């Protein structure tokens, strides 16, 4: 665990230009102690039973990139939602890139976490929201908190509909031999407001990168947050994404996670409720190959009556890839009339592919409708034959069926250009050109 030692011993360097007496820094210092005590999770931890971080954390990484790397827009344009006008908060090796970004303070704030953490005008927001729902106990979250400094900050005031989607993209330039990134995002959506967010982590060179990201999302009464996570990174890059969402009454928060690439991806997605009639949506499509590994760990904590949650995760695994689904529905005694559904369907395409699924229900209230289902299987050979007998080549037929399999997750994507993009990515991944949009 040498890297753990490095993280702790490098902390002095990180602290150098920070106000050590500041309350935010107190939070950071406390979190570092949690991480120091707990260290990286191992397979002995029940929630990490199927995902090992050993290989990742037994290596060395640069914590502070040496120089400000610059990249040309033309090289990275394809990673943007270029045919749609968006706000953009872009980072290169963890450093904000004003050149690539398009932030705003006009009616809403789409800007930098570093600004929010230091400027007096954001002090109240930071005091109210920073590190309030992120776990204080979970060691990776604590590690992120201890190094939290930069990331995206979004504040949507009451009765405001963000007219443009917000893109948050973290590029790794590859200038460093290997890099450890810890972005920290805070998103606050006030009453009756709406926003769409697209988050992406992208390496530009085949150098090892590990991103340990934490995002806190606060969804106030009657608000709607529509969040998309695009994970299609190089196989040298790994991501541990920790997203914490708190919803107030009558709100809706939806997170779609598309895991199509990367070396090792772990998505920790946690939902908490503070009122009634809340809708929580968690959907995901995972398509892996090679030796990729993706672990979805979800938790919806139903602590108030009359709320609803829907989880739907589809996975398609080929070659030696591994998929993990670790979903938890927790219904408190008080949370009567809860409707909670969880579905996890997987297709194994190759002999060496693996799926480990653990859909859990923990229910303490009696008047609830809760169910979960999990399947592991293959392509329906009969349907495949049917398509082929109509003249569709095997590869296309398989691709078509893969689409069909993932479709009910895709069809709830609200942004047409994003949907088109994901369709294209899936087609490329399957190596086919369907010649039509689905």
């Amino acid at each position, binding site marked *: 665990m040498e890297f753990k030692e490095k993280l702790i011993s490098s902390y002095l360097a990180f602290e150098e230009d920070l106000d050590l007496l500041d309350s935010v820094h107190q939070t950071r210092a406390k979190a570092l102690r949690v991480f120091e005590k707990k260290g990286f999770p191992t397979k002995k931890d*029940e929630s990490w039973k*199927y995902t090992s971080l050993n290989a990742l954390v037994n290596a060395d990484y640069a914590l502070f990139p040496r120089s400000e790397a610059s990249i040309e827009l033309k090289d990275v344009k394809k990673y943007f939602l270029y045919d749609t006008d968006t706000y953009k908060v872009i980072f290169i090796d963890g450093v904000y890139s004003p050149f690539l970004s398009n932030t705003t303070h006009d009616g809403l704030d789409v800007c930098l976490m570093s600004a929010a953490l230091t400027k007096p005008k954001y002090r109240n927001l930071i005091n109210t929201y920073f590190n309030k729902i992120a776990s204080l106990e979970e060691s990776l979250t604590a590690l992120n908190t201890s190094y939290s400094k930069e990331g995206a900050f979004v504040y949507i005031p009451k009765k405001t509909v963000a007219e443009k989607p917000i893109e948050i993209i973290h590029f790794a330039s590859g200038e460093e031999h290997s890099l450890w990134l810890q972005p920290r995002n805070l998103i606050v959506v006030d009453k009756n407001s709406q926003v769409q967010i697209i988050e992406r982590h992208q390496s530009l060179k085949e150098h090892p990168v590990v991103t340990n990201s934490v995002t806190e999302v606060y969804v106030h009464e009657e608000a709607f947050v529509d969040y998309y996570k695009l994970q299609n990174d190089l196989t040298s890059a790994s991501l541990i994404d920790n997203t914490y969402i708190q919803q107030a009454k009558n709100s809706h928060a939806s997170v779609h996670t598309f895991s199509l690439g990367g070396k090792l991806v772990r998505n920790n997605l946690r939902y908490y409720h503070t009122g009634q009639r809340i809708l929580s949506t968690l959907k995901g499509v995972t398509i892996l190959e090679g030796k990729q590994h993706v672990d979805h760990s979800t938790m919806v904590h139903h602590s108030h009556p009359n709320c609803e949650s829907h989880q739907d995760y589809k996975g398609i695994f080929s070659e030696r890839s591994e998929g993990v689904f670790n979903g938890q529905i927790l219904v408190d*005694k008080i949370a*009567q009339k809860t409707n909670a559904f969880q579905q996890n369907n*997987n297709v*194994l*395409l*190759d*002999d*060496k*592919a*693996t*799926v*480990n*699924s*653990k*859909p*859990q*229900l*923990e*229910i*303490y*209230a*009696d*008047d*609830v*409708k*809760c*169910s*979960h*289902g*999990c*399947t*592991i*299987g*293959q392509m329906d050979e009969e349907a495949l034959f049917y398509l082929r007998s109509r003249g569709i080549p095997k590869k296309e037929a398989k691709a078509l069926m893969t689409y069909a399999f993932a479709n009910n997750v895709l069809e709830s994507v609200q942004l047409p250009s994003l949907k088109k993009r994901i369709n294209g990515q899936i087609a490329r991944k399957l190596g086919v050109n369907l010649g039509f949009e689905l």
Partner: protein
Amino acid sequence: MAYTEEELKKELETKEYEYGFYTDIESDTFPVGLNEDIIRKISGKKGEPEWMTEWRLDAFSSFKKMVEPDWSNVKYKKPDLQKISYYSAPKQKPKYNSLEEVDPELLKTFDKLGISIDEQKKLSGVAVDIVMDSVSVATTFRDTLAEKGIIFCSISEAIQKHPELVKKYIGTVIPPRDNYYSALNSAVFTDGSFCYIPKGVRCPMELSTYFRINQAGTGQFERTLVIADEQSYVSYLEGCTAPSRDENQLHAAVVELIALDDAEIKYSTVQNWFPGDKNGKGGVFNFVTKRGLCHDRAKISWTQVETGSAVTWKYPSCVLKGDNSIGEFYSIAVTNNFQQADTGTKMVHLGKNTRSTIISKGISAGKSQNSYRGLVKVGSRAKNARNFSQCDSLLMGNNCGAHTFPYIEAKNNSAQVEHEATTSKIGEDQIFYCNQRGIDTEKAIALIVNGFSKEVLNKLPMEFAVEAQKLLEISLEGSVG
């Protein structure tokens, strides 16, 4: 006034444990404590051969290095293993030649349990082995079985008379060091049942064992070993009761099943250990390891109705090692008052074309917690493995919990695994509908619960199914309707 939720709850709480009597039989009980001497004494008392004593001591040395597991979803005060007596036998002649020789008090006990040995002998043709405080006291129907070459006796007797079979199979499915309680059991087990069905033989009757804890301060550590040789068939029943006592009693059994090529074993359990009183005082800690090994084309089917025990921790499992082998698990677990159950199964698919089915019905009432925990594992060589799992929970009242923790691991692309789970409650409209037809609320609940559990009840042998239905009603109601 009509039957309110309140009244129903009260009634549920005041239900008495029907089997909570204590039989006054003189017992030969060891002093409390756990050490090598005690183990040697147990082994000596039973006149065991040297290899068996060594086997026990070996298990004990593994046990000493282990810690009590705490991953299950149950909370309890860990039993003090030094305060338990590891040997308690009814003080009578060491063995009975016929039922006439059995202590009449003991026979009365069995009558109260609803096991009239005589009657069963005559009417239903069930061969019964009865284990009281860990010692087998009576085995019926031996001669009939012997004609077919079937061995059905206590494990102590088997160690004496069939050492080659015991030596060959004991601990092969559940090695002593498998877990904390299996290690403990391997070291201190005092008795249990042994059964061997020879090649090609279909056992003509149900074989049955009744377990009863009687003495205070004793633990029950029975060991069951069932071997079905090639192309044989056996249906095995197991029933359990204990008197009501303030303190918790420990029951840590080990059951090993071996189904050789083309053999079939059906193993049914109706577990009704004392669940503790309505305040959660007393009751049996039921920490059991049950596992079966299937060779080619063999089939093992576990059926269980779990209504008793304060804490249950039990996962009857199948290792589907042989090609085309089949594993089944049908379970009803009822918890009431302060009971806690963490039960389920493991289906380990190793061979090709292996199939498994899991049907689990959990019913929670009172302040109880009821968890299903299961593992379906498909190994990389298990081509065309199939599993279907269904876990349904029924909640009664708002002070209990129902939980589902399935683990599904598939390493083979030809595997098909399906898991479904639901949670529901008894609808007020269902109760009203029954009421309108003249059926009172208590009976209506029994009817609905029986309906909910039907897929599993149907899997039990006839005479057990009736008993199980009755047990469900007793467990959930004020009286039998």
